[in-house]
Every structure is written in C-alpha cells, then in structure tokens.
C-alpha cells in the first residue's frame, strides 16, 4: 500500500496523540478516532456493502486498535497499522459469515466470460454518465470476493502482492479477480444507464478526492 505522505507537523501531533492515548487519555482516543474514522468506516462500508455491519466493524477495529495501542512502537505509519488491522477485522467477519470460507484461488474456477460490447447504437462510453454514487451502488452489488479485491486495490491502493498475502491467494489470482470485478462493474453501470437508473452525471473532470468545499 502506498500511504499518503503526511506533513511533518501532522505526524508530530499524531505522535503526541498516540503517546497520550497509550497513557489512557480519552481526549487523545477521541482525536485519533476523529482523524481516522472516515477512512476506516469507508473501508468497512465498501467491503461489506452494509452500513450496520460497517459501523459494527469500525467499532471493533478501533477497539482492537486502542487495546493494542500500547504495543505500537512506530515501526510503520500509524495509519498503515490501523488500516491493516481494519482490513483483517473485515475479512475475519466475512469469513465468519461464510462468504470467504475458501481462498480466492479456490473460488476462481469460473470460466472467463466474453467481454460484452454494445454493437450498434449504444456504444457510448461511460465517461460523463456515471458518478461516484452510482459506482458505490455497483460496488455494493459485487460478489464479496470480487468486491474485496476491487476495494483493496482500486480504492485503497494496495498492491497485488499485499492483497495476495491478506487474502491468502496468488498474485495472479488477485489480478484476475480485479479484472473480473471491473468488468462486472462496467456491465452493471451500462445496464443501469440503459435502464435510466443512474443518477445525475458528475463532472468527472473536476478533482474530487479531497475537494475543498
């Protein structure tokens, strides 16, 4: 995973917060939660596609974090540590639900489906006709295995070798699952557009990641 570079001042203040949290300071716990809750919750939400489950898992991830925070020695970035912990919490939950009982290598037995093309009039690109809300909906509808790989790679920025380690599968399988996930999303979004079910187009040329209000 490629964590975003944090400014030195932010790292310093976070280090202070971690030290205070290690001493049981509730205000430090609160500030750390406030600082990271969106990223952890978003990961949980996208991996499960369910707000109630995502909130439970966010709660569990932070509880585990705060229980273990006294062992944090700063060898890795705090956000990386927390994020990996949250991923493990979600995957454990999915396994308990029976959605990931077997590794992706075992799941990936399906034949490659042919790429769907709209020969004829409807060959317009999706560019300009899908927005992030539509994509969120489509991601939630993906099968859990595809969804996990797509979320980890395309949204969270994990590399295939990291996903392979996390998901207990091969690098090739991670790549294959990701490709199939993207193809399914494309198919879903094109079908939704043809049904008129997509929301208003977003101006995709506008930077949206941490867009300032």
């Amino acid at each position: 995973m490629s964590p975003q570079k944090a400014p030195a001042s932010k790292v310093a203040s976070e280090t202070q917060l971690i030290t205070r949290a290690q001493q049981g300071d509730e205000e430090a716990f609160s500030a750390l939660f406030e600082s990271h809750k969106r990223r952890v919750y978003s990961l949980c939400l996208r991996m499960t596609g369910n707000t109630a489950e995502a909130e439970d898992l966010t709660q569990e991830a932070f509880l585990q974090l705060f229980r273990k925070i006294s062992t944090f020695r700063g060898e890795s970035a705090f956000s990386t540590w927390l994020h990996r912990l949250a991923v493990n919490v979600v995957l454990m939950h999915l396994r308990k639900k029976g959605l990931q009982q077997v590794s992706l290598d075992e799941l990936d037995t399906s034949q490659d489906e042919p790429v769907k093309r709209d020969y004829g009039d409807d060959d317009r690109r999706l560019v300009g006709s899908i927005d992030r809300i539509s994509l969120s909906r489509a991601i939630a509808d993906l099968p859990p295995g595809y969804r996990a790989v797509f979320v980890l790679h395309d949204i969270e920025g994990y590399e295939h070798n990291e996903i392979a380690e996390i998901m207990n599968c091969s690098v090739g399988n991670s790549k294959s699952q990701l490709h199939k996930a993207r193809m399914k999303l494309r198919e879903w979004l094109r079908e939704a557009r043809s049904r008129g079910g997509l929301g208003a187009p977003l101006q995709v040329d506008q930077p949206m990641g941490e867009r300032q209000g």
Partner: protein
Amino acid sequence: MMAQENRQPTAECGRFDAELMAYLEGESRPFVAAHVRECVFCAVVLADLEQVRFLARQMPLAEPSPAVWANVRARLEGEGLSRPKARNWDWLHALRALANPAPAGALASLMALGILLTAAPHALQQPETTASLFSSASPAEVAASASQAPESQLAHMVADLEATYKANEKFLAPDLRATYAKGLSSLDTSIQECQDSLRKEPANTLAHDYLVTAYTQKAEVLATALEFQGR
C-alpha cells in the same frame, strides 16, 4: 479509421480481450493500444474500464454515525482502558465556560441547536433548567436530533452552528483544529455533491438520504468541536 458499422468481434478483438488485463496492470501491450485506434467497440470497453478505475480512486469518504464513537468510548471506559476527563457539560465546567465570552457563545449556539432540534415544530418547549439545556446539546444527542429535523431547518441550524465554530476555532489546539477542518471540508464536499445531484435529479432519494446524513454528521462534528472549545 474506426469501424462504425454493426459487426461481430474479430480475431483482433479476441486478442484485445486476452491482453486487456495485463495492459490495465501497466504491462507493455502495444497491440491493445493499436487495436483501440482501429476498433470503436474495444475502445469503448477500454475507456469504460479506465473510467471505473478513475472514479474508484476518487471515492469520497463516508462518515460513521455518532453512535460508533459513543460505543467505543463506553467500551474503553468499561474495560478501564481510558481515563475520562471531567464530563464536558458538568456544572463546574459550565460555570467556568459561561465566564468566558467565547466558549459561552459556542455554548449558547449548542443550546439553541439542542432546543431547536428537539423542539416539536409547533410546540417549542423551553427547558426548565440549565442542566437540561446542556444535556440536550451533547454531540451524540445533537446528531440524533438532527437526523430527525426537516432538511431545510437542519441546513439553517448547521450553518448557524458553523458560524459560531468559525468565530471561536482559534481557541482549539492546532492539531484538533486541523483535524476538524479536514473533517468539515470532507463533509462540505459530500453536501455539495449531493446538492448538485439533487439539482439535476430532484427525485434522487439516495442523494437526498446522503445529504441529510452529511448534514447530521456535520452537526455532530461541530458539536464535538465546540465541546473541545469549551474545555
């Protein structure tokens, strides 16, 4: 020149399919780049996948409900892991805050928000004591009440609360101020995006739900920030 007429996939399209995954993984596949210049249908496939990948990198962050922190905090306290400070709205703190004009202003805004949010539309109730005012304005309760408020009223009240926060944010420690600024900016982005969607598609219920949620979460974040301002 691109073929525009209806047709079936060619052998080249099959090779495109076979090499597409590797191409998207960043491997050098000159055939894919060359084929999409010739075949409009495969060009659409590639453009769509690149668009999905582009949007995925820009997905907005979502906000958990205030209940998540409330539960985490309760569990931490229950397990003896956290050392709680004096509750924010206890009598001593309130008296101290009221002696200071800036926190008092923030407090007044919170109190007003608490009153407005919890009041029935046509039966505004006056709390009987200061203590009940404070208890009605804790962040979790503000957020819970906000989620029940009409959208127009909610937007107005959040704006008032934000104005108070802006006027007093200098009292916050720099690290907390930066944290709240980032959180509020993210929520403003979500609110703007939902409003844009609703302008174009007023019946989009999903966008409407997201908008109310974003306002509610902003109310909670502001209430929490004002809590810290008052310390």
